[in-house]
Every structure is written in C-alpha cells, then in structure tokens.
C-alpha cells in the first residue's frame, strides 16, 4: 500500500504570520516515524500537514522544510479565527477523506480541546501529552506506541490504540525540531465549504489580550521554581523578589499552587507548563515525577531541599541539602548589599 498517511495538525500564529514551533516539532516527530516505518517495517508513511485558515501568507515551504510531503489546505473565511466547531469538523472531514493511520495534534490550549472533540466523534482513542512515541509491532500490526506520564506523573505509561487513526498530542518542548536538507512537497487545497454553512453554536464575542507579557515561561532561559517547601506566601514572595532582582523567570510546583502560595499560571509540571531553560533551580520542590516531566528538558538543574532523600535529587545536576528559605534570604541579602 503506497499511501499510508500520518497527519500533523498544524497551528498557525496569525499575529506573527508563522507556524508555531510545536508544529515543526510534530513534523520532526512524523519524519522520525516515517523513517522507522521505512527502515524497520518496510513501508512508506506519507507525512501530511493540515492547514486551516481564511487565507494566509505563511510560508508553506517551512512545512515542507520540516518534512511535510503533502499539505492539505482548507481555506474558508469562517476559519479566520479559531472556532472549535468549524475547526473540528474540518479536521474530521479531512480524516474521513484521507484516512490517515496516525494523527499528531499539538497539546496547546486549542489542540487539547480540538483533539478529543475530533477523536470522540471518530470513536477512536487519544493519548494526551505524550513525551515520546515509536512504531512497534504488536499482533502482526505496526502500531504507534505513545508514552506519557500517568498517575499524576508518578509513572510513565506506553499506550497503544486498537482503532485507526491512532491519535496523540504532544506538548511544546519535548521534541527537538530538525529541518531537512532536501525536500519537496505538494499542496492540495480542499474545499469544504458545506461544513461552514450552519452557524457555529460558539460565538467569539471578544478577545482581551493580556497586558505586556514580559516573557513566557516556555521561552525563559533561567527559571527559579518554588515548591511546597517554601511553606508560606511570604516566603514565596521573597523568591519572587529574588527573580525580579536577577531578571529571570519565576515558576511554582503544583504543591505550591495547591497550597495557595502561587498562581496556577506559573505552574510547571504535568498539569502545568513544560519548560526547557538553560538553568532551572528548584527551591523546596520535592520532585514528584509529575513535576520532573515538566522540566526534565532543562539544560542544568539545581535542587535545594531540606530532605536529603527528596526525589528531586535524583534529577538534578547540583544537589544542595539546605533550607530553601534560608538560601533565598541569604541571596537577597547578598544582592541588596552589592
């Protein structure tokens, strides 16, 4: 069979006129699965990118550069802004038309509601927030084996799906994107106008942009993260002041957020953000796997914890057995005196 397909659902950042990094990461992953199919199982997988929009100037060449053999482009005025009803019905229709074996979705806010909206209508499975995936042979069939943290991130589970398409979502930062040297692509525009005739039951009334965002945690170079070990809001605020003085980013573990020490917006871990800074310093974070899964891509990790058996010490480059609050106090004192 020549045209076995893998779909990558792309994300387009309208305001910047580019595809998201996660789009290229998913394409890189699809290319790797294509390689495994060819080398290990002797069949060809065609990497197909789906693009939904009202007409964009983005460089489709970029999708080709990261491995899209084929681009399926649904162009309609109704797709100008994201609308779950329109987007999910377009993807659903593309899947029914082209019959891919595997579909990779971005685990962005949008992707995380889009993916289950599509898979539930297809009555197929979806493995969310995967950290890796491979092709394996199971009962004579080549299957997508998708691995994700589970049980609050305490364990990793590899999930298989009996039905096609086998669907998975990935978060930004767990795959390193890599461009191809030689590439060709075909772009096919697919008119699906009939899907957009009925008005969507969801209406965008207003979008209120956040005030000037300093920098996002996902892009931060240095992150100090406070955990449950900081105990009080006052202590957490000290850490906040320290990050402000040093001009770096602040994060919190789920334990700290659940205790009400910090806002959920800055939570790192399985139920929060996935980060990959050059330096990650964990202050009073115990280091349950659900936390590790959100920061394991950091280049250097420093852990400060009173408990010398804290699991975080198994996942750090520098181990400091001390009271994190005392260290914060000492650092603040040093920095204010110089």
């Amino acid at each position, binding site marked *: 069979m020549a045209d076995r397909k893998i779909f990558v659902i792309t994300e387009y950042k309208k305001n910047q006129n580019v595809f998201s990094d996660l789009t290229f990461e998913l394409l890189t992953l699809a290319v790797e699965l294509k390689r495994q199919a060819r080398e290990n199982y002797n069949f060809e997988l065609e990497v197909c990118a789906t693009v939904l929009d009202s007409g964009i100037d983005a460089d489709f060449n970029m999708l080709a550069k990261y491995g899209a053999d084929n681009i399926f482009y649904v162009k309609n005025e109704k797709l100008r802004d994201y609308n*779950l*009803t329109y987007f999910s019905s377009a993807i659903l229709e593309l899947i029914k038309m082209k019959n891919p074996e595997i579909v990779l979705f971005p685990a962005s*806010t949008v992707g*995380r*509601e889009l993916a*289950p*909206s599509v*898979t*539930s209508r297809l009555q*197929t*499975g*979806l493995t*969310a927030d995967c950290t890796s995936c491979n092709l394996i042979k199971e009962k004579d069939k080549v299957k997508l084996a998708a691995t994700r943290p*589970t*049980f*609050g*991130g305490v*364990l990793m*589970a*590899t*999930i*298989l799906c*009996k039905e096609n398409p086998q669907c998975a979502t990935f978060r930004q930062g767990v795959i390193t994107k890599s461009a191809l040297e030689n590439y060709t692509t075909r772009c096919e525009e697919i008119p699906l106008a009939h899907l957009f005739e009925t008005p*969507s*039951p*969801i209406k*965008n009334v*207003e*979008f*209120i942009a*956040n005030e000037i965002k300093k920098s996002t945690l996902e892009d931060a170079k*240095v992150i100090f993260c406070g955990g449950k070990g900081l105990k009080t809001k006052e202590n957490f605020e000290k850490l906040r002041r320290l990050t402000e003085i*040093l001009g770096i980013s602040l994060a919190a573990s789920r334990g700290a957020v*659940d205790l009400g020490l910090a*806002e*959920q917006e800055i939570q790192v871990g399985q*139920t929060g953000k996935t980060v990959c*800074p*050059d330096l990650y*310093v964990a202050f009073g974070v115990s280091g349950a*796997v*659900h936390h*590790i899964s959100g920061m394991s891509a950091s280049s*250097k990790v*420093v852990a400060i914890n009173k408990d010398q058996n804290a*699991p975080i*010490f198994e*996942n750090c*480059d*520098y*181990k*400091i*057995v*001390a009271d994190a609050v005392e*260290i914060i106090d*000492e*650092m603040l*004192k*040093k*920095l204010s005196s110089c």
Partner: protein
Amino acid sequence: MQIVVCIKQVPDTNNIKWTKENNLQREGMVSILNPCDNYALEAAFKIREKFKNAKITAITMGPSQAKNVLNYALARGCDEAVLLCDKAFSASDTLATGRVISSAIKKLFPKCSLIICGQYAQDGDTAQTGPTIAGMLDIPVVTNVGQIINCDIKMSIFKQVLKDGVNILEVKNPSVACVLKGDEPIKPLYVKDYMRSQEIGIKEYNLSDLELDKTQTGILGSPTYVFKAFKLEHQRDAQEIKYNIPDFLINLTKNGGKNG
C-alpha cells in the same frame, strides 16, 4: 434549569509517600475530590444563586467507594447525586468513560442546559473527558473556563483563559464547560451539611439502566490500552554543593547555568 457537574475521585497525589527503594507506596493512599471539580461545583452554585430553580446534579462513574465524593458534593449543596457503577465500566479509557457519562446524561437529563467538568483530573490529567462527553452528545464545549459569566436555558457566556489573553465566548446551550481551578478557598463543611447529604442519598445506575452493551464500556469498549508502565529514568548525576551556596547560585544564574 438542569445543570450536571461531572466529578471524579482521585488519589491524593500531592501526598504520595515513597518507600525506601523510591517506589510508590500505595498503602494508605487517600482519595479526594479532584481539585478542579471543586470549582466546577462552585461554578454551578453561582448560577443557582441567580436562577433559584436551577437543579444541580453531581455525577461520577466509579466503584462504590466513589460515593464519598458524591456525598461530599451533596454536602456542598448539590440537589442530586448519581453514581454510574458497574463492573463492566472498570478500566474504561477516556472514550469509554465519555460514552458512559454521555449516555447517562442523555437518558437521565435530556433537558440538561449545562454540563460542567473540571479542566483536568489530577491523576490522569488527559483533560479529555469533558470534550469527549461533548463530542458524544454532539454539543459545543469550551475548555479552560475561568468564569461562567452567565448561563440560562438557551445560552452561556464563558470567560476562557488563554496564554495570551482571555476570550469571551457566547455558546448555545446545551453545552459543556471545563473549568479551571480557582484561587478562592473552598468553604469548610459542617455536620449539618453531611446530614443533608445523608437525607438526599445517592442514585445508582448500571450498564443495563443506561442501555449500554458491555462491548461499549470497560476494556472492550476502550480503543486504547496500556502496553507497559514504568518509572521515569533518571539521567543526571548530581554533584553536591555544600559551601558558599548563595554565591554559587548567583554566579550560575548570571552565567546561564554554566559553572565558573
């Protein structure tokens, strides 16, 4: 107006104990109401403050131990509690779970205006069950809801919290809202609340009550299955720092992680 709140009992993964060998200690693990779901309940109560005739039903799928969270939901102020319990439901993945819950809603609350779920469950954290229920019922869903601004029989207005701002959405009911964990503290409960919960009691429904077939639920009805489970591998060798810690950290920060 009927509102259904989907809740889940989860192990308290914040208080996980580890054995000396660094394994998960399953004994004595405590179950709690999934933290997001507390805010799903709260969102429903806020609607009832405006629309006094709104009836709030908490629903969960699980073994009979899951009655604990339903009793809690009743004590918090729900008007009704429903347990979907059958051996055939166990080991359901998100698709099969969505199928059971959506079948129950279709059968028991055909006139339901709004279904509220927590954004994600603390244990599985797939954030899929809400959108899956909506997909199965073929009704709209909005995730990452920070606030339900208004809700009546015909329409809901949701505030959706996104990375770069907030979205105000007007959605035709019936719809599904997946709400985020809020910041406000959850009010403590008193004995009288639990007494009220006892008086109301929990309604139970099984596979045949929902007119489902056992090939549609549990392992048979789940397209996904766990191929293997394992502990995360550790890839770092820790070097212990004992002296001049503040200087070490300040330098490391200034050098972007490079020591020296």
